[in-house]
């Protein structure tokens, strides 16, 4: 056994840090904060120029062929620096799927632009009435000669207001069992009939979207995978998604830095209070556990296995832990912890207040905690399946 990260990884880590220090300018952060859009084109294109959008892709696909550990380090550093990588991760999920299930034309036309950082692809899965039960999607696609006509609504289509394409889950057969009547399309966002409406979130601030599709006409060439075979394409994409994240690493760092300098009315430093130190220690332990569980996911993948249960555990633990820990870090700041980023005297420049709001979403998207617990229980522990309506 060996718990050290590989040395080549550490060299790469410094390279990523240098890059982030240069490109994650105050200007970029300010724009993310103002627009609630966790994506920045200049930053994204810089990633493309560096070759890091395709960091993990094989060289013959235009990538750098980096291993799972280097990718892990890349994402850890981005998370620690709070880099706006929503566009990157969503686009890669779809691009990975296209590499496996896309047509030759789709691969030739789209993948190089993805790698260059010119294209962002958003995910059109969730609908007003279907979330966790994603296979119950209703947005309809009806064949019309060589084309398809799309009608319906999606919700939580994050980055739809920036993306060039939407990876769209549609219903092509209403009579088949729900998993067997779905078809995936890759639809250009400038196709007539698509409307995007902002949906503001608790992020500080954060934006996602409602998207409306009215008689949207797309050629059959926009289809990804077989007709009524959309579920297989979807599940392939989902396996690229779960890996677990860091715990409340940044929030802890910010709080410790604040506690070392901030003074209580009696003149003592906040960190002099043993109660504060004990609570920081509890967060430090949870962060260590979160990191180990997610490293285990990476290790499992690096060993050539599909880390389904491991990834679910890691994501379940880290997202629940971040919610607990950011709440506790906020509490230990006392009343001042309430102050938001725009207040000059907000502790840690309001970073923990912001982290605490954002923490709520991690347990919801990418599989809610309840969905993940069922995976761990049934696939990991082998418990008898819950009888749910089909």
């Amino acid at each position: 056994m060996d718990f050290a990260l590989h040395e080549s990884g550490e060299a790469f880590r410094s390279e990523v840090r240098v890059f982030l220090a240069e490109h994650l300018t105050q200007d970029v952060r300010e724009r993310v904060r103002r627009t609630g859009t966790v994506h920045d084109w200049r930053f994204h294109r810089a990633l493309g120029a560096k070759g890091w959008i395709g960091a993990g892709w094989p060289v013959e696909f235009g990538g750098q062929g980096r291993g799972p550990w280097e990718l892990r380090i890349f994402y850890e550093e981005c998370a620690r620096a709070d880099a706006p990588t929503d566009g990157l991760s969503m686009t890669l999920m779809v691009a990975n799927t296209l590499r496996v299930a896309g047509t030759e034309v789709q691969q030739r036309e789209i993948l190089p632009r993805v790698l260059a950082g010119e294209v962002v692809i958003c995910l059109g899965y969730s609908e007003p009435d279907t979330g966790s039960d994603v296979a119950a999607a209703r947005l309809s696609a009806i064949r019309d000669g060589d084309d398809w006509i799309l009608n319906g609504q999606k919700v939580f289509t994050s980055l739809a207001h920036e993306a060039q394409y939407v990876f769209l889950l549609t219903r092509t057969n209403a009579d088949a069992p729900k998993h067997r009547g779905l078809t995936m399309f890759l639809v250009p966002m400038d196709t007539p009939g698509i409307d995007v409406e902002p949906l503001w979130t608790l992020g500080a601030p954060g934006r996602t979207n409602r998207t409306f599709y009215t008689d949207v006409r797309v050629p059959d060439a926009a289809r990804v995978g077989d007709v009524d075979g959309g579920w297989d394409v979807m599940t392939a994409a989902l396996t690229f998604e779960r890996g677990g994240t860091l715990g409340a690493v940044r929030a802890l760092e910010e709080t410790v830095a604040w506690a070392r300098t901030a003074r209580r009315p009696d003149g003592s430093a906040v960190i002099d209070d043993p109660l504060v130190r004990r609570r920081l220690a509890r967060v430090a332990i949870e962060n260590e556990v979160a990191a180990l569980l997610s490293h285990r996911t990476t290790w499992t993948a690096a060993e050539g296995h599909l880390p389904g249960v491991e990834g679910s555990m890691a994501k379940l633990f880290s997202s629940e832990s971040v919610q607990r820990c950011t709440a506790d870090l906020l509490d230990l700041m006392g009343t001042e912890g309430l102050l938001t980023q725009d207040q000059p005297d907000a502790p840690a420049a309001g970073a923990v207040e912001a982290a605490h709001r954002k923490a709520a979403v991690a347990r919801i998207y990418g599989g809610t905690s309840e969905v993940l617990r069922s995976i761990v229980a049934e696939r990991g522990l082998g418990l008898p399946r819950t009888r749910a309506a089909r």
Partner: protein
Amino acid sequence: MDLAPSAEQQARALAVAELLAKHASPERVRAAEPLGFDGPLWQHVSARNWPDLDALLDLALVAEEMGRHLAPAPFVEVAVSRRLLRAAGVDVGVGDATITTLALHDSSSGVARLVPAGAVADAVVALRHGELVVVPIHGARPGAPVSNLGCLPIADCPVDGSDATQLMGADRAGAAHTRAVDEWRVLTASALVGLAAGALDLAVNHVTHRHQFGVPVGSFQAVQHRLADLATDLEGARLLARKAAWSADQRASDAPALAAMAFVWAAGAAHRVTTDSLHFHGGYGYTLENDIQLSFRRAKAWALVLDDPERELSRLGDTLYAVVG
């Protein structure tokens, strides 16, 4: 990074498991109560040199198996105290069945209170007025059990007699004792991980076969989801305990912090796993005839032999964030 035990480590874990399946069955564990010591089992374990393994990680992997079987044998205490004795230059025989133990707290009062394995030990190593001493324990063995929650062979050990031998002077005694207690934390964390894994297996097995309302109770989400959280906490505890052992072997600077983290997390996880595993057995879990009560009692006891885990957390807070100077 490589999270798989080596072939040698796996083979050893298998050998430990096989031995314990034979000599530390639930019946033997019960028969060893209330003292919490099984002489023939200890002969087997010590004769195989397992307490004398070099690397803390190797010891940790054995401790996991010991914990899983609730083995009534002072493996952790002997391993840790022998390391300390060897560090002091004492020639300790490999494969020896002699039981030495470690007083975990400062014993300057003259009596080391409720020392783990103290009731069955031949000698205790203690920190007394800044110096490290080894004191033989006289009297009939097995010692008189001190009735306690975990049926642990704990006992008060006098360390102020004239038969105490100095092992280290004040110059290095404190640091050496601190390190030994850190090793005890790591190995106890490992044992707690094994214990909790065994308890979780019992719970999973029970809820899979127990039917109510016409379905297995393990198909209810209220049951499934708590077990999923527990399995996740436990997996984290396992990784953390192993990492703490590995770091100690590497003499990494964060080894003391990791030892405390591993101990606190494993103590909490083992408590949660065993209480809920008992709970999901329903009324049967509350009966003495059910094996889950064996792990339920020990999960609390093994950790509390050191101290209130919350106080351990305070110590960790001081280690990580104390303002120097």
